[in-house]
């Protein structure tokens, strides 16, 4: 039985500096550097943006969809005549925080389920992984939409919904990698000494999954950003006067021909952010897994898939 997402495990990451080394090797590549740079620029805008003085994201500046000018600011005004620049500067930090938390929860839950299933084998394995398969039957965005509309559209619910809808996918990817590690001799040896399963998992198995885990974190982060901003775009998770890049793209669409900045500014920032994170995740995968394995790993972890045969 073969899985496409199976990642060959080298002996590279047995030591404790595995994570640092995985990240450093990614930073030495061009892709890694570009990715990190792009991510950094957008993160800076999102985090430092609200601190820029004299920018009020909810105040009236000039008539709706005024092109850039002296009164309307550097990027003109939006659908309600508010400064696009001020709203762009203030519209990213919430997204960033929510995406990071959602990713952390999704990867933690997914990795826990995937590794435990791979280690325990037997019924636990079958139950957990079939459970993940079943959850994946509903498209992730639709599942998140359902959860958000069922439980209210507050930030906590949004984070939870995005995390829950991504966790099965993480579980599946990490499970495939963990199976290879769990079969290896040093794990079996430690097991024979009578070390409890919890310790075997945390001390022996997890350190050998640093690469797939960090790639997964990167890909999930960019997906969380896409999903959260997408849900915002659809009108979930943000209360109206608050700015958010997803909301801005939606509400300023009708003014696309008079002041395109209301849409393009947040769209460009979102795009750069997603591409930057993705490039960096790709660099980690390539530097540590080799090109071919990285390619299959990424394609399969982005798209839902079932194990073949």
């Amino acid at each position, binding site marked *: *039985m073969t899985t*496409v997402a199976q990642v060959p495990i080298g002996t590279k990451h047995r030591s404790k500096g595995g994570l640092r080394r995985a990240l450093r090797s990614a930073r030495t590549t061009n892709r890694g550097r570009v990715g990190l740079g792009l991510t950094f620029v957008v993160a800076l805008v999102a985090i430092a943006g609200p601190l820029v003085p004299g920018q009020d994201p909810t105040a009236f500046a000039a008539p709706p969809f005024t092109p850039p000018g002296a009164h309307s600011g550097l990027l003109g005004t939006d659908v309600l005549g508010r400064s696009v620049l001020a709203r762009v500067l203030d519209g990213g930090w919430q997204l960033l925080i929510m995406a990071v938390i959602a990713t952390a929860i999704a990867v933690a839950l997914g990795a826990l389920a995937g590794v435990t299933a791979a280690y325990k*084998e*037997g*019924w*636990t*394995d*079958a139950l957990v992984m*079939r459970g993940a*398969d*079943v*959850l*994946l*039957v*509903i*498209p992730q*965005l*639709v*599942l998140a*939409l*359902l*959860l958000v*509309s*069922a*439980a*209210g559209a507050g930030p906590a619910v949004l984070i939870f919904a995005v995390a829950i809808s991504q966790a099965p996918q993480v579980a599946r990817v990490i499970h495939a990698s963990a199976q290879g590690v769990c079969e290896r001799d040093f794990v079996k040896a430690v097991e024979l000494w009578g070390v409890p399963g919890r310790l075997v998992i945390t001390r022996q198995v997890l350190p050998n999954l640093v690469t797939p885990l960090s790639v997964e974190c990167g890909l999930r982060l*960019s997906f969380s*950003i*896409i999903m959260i901003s*997408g849900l915002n*775009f659809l*009108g979930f998770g943000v209360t109206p006067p608050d700015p958010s890049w997803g909301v801005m*793209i939606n509400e300023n*669409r009708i003014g*696309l*021909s008079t002041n*395109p900045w209301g*849409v*393009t500014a947040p*769209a460009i920032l979102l*795009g750069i952010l*997603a*591409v930057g994170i*993705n*490039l960096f995740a*790709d660099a980690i995968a390539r530097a540590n897994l080799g*090109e*071919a394995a990285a*390619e*299959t790993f*990424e*394609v399969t972890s*982005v*798209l*839902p*898939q*079932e*194990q*073949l*045969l």
Partner: protein
Amino acid sequence: MSVGGTVQPANMPSIDPVTEDAGAARPAASTPHPLLRLLSRRVPLGLLSIVVAAVIVYWATLVLPGDAATSILGQSATPERLAQLRQTLGLDEPPLQSFVRWFSGLVHGDFGTSLTQQRPVWDVVEPRLLNSAVLVLIAAVLSTIVGIVMGLMAARRPDRLTDTAFSVGALVASALPEFVVAVFVILTLSVGLFHWFPAISALPPGEYVWEHPDKLVLPAITLLIVVTPYVFRMVRAATIEALRADYSEVAVLKGTTQARLLYRHALPNALAPTIQVVGLNLLYLAGGIVMVETVFTYPGVGLTLVGAIESRDIPLVQFLVVLLAIFYVTVNIAADVGVLLVTPRKRFPR
């Protein structure tokens, strides 16, 4: 519990209880055809998945905030009408009972009545379903063709200019959110640079999208940009791998032409991952249409679902999500059957 203790870890990599039974009962001589074995495992699991999906939707729509009947009829509704609606919605029943009633209706082809449109759910969904199917089909077919062609072009000379350009382009395109791609497509082809196609794909009621092909263009291009990269990356990786394999080297040493090497030796071996990724793309499209249809107000399943969730049209939401789940399961099984059929190694196990 007792089973857990008797599992032999080494020789029985237990994947699925169903196969274990099949494996245990299997006499050495008459092995069932791998295709049958695949189906006998995946079809029940798929059906189970659909049922679980139905339970999830039902639960999610049941706990929708507020009293569904009040939110549908408004505050000024008479108590009689409220009571009547509660009864039709099954709100006065215990949850399990109402679920069973709804689900058996679903199985028997009674999908309920749309609350906002006061028509059978199927009448509401059918035209939208056809519209979405056209869009998804166009995107899937074109992305497969474009992805394979670009993948082969890139794989022929890895790390040269074409390959690098395509690869970086694919990485960027696959990372972008669908609605961001859509915005830039609108900006280039509809309101900014060129004014070729309408940015809004809304249709007059009762008409289908193929009667207005110009409204199909922008949503299709958007989906194409979003899903082609996956086909491209998979074809490229699989072809490069096949070209590096021993059999390709032998073929080169025997003096085969470049074209023959690519189409006769590498491509058939890259076919299985390609079928898989096309299947995956279809699944991705099932979710992707939600965003893209909303951006373009394209009258399809995705837009209908978002609208139904917003207007709390519970029967419509329930049916659409179950429909998406059925689509997922079907495509998934079909893709695996396809992979099996093009991989002789799997079809005739030793």
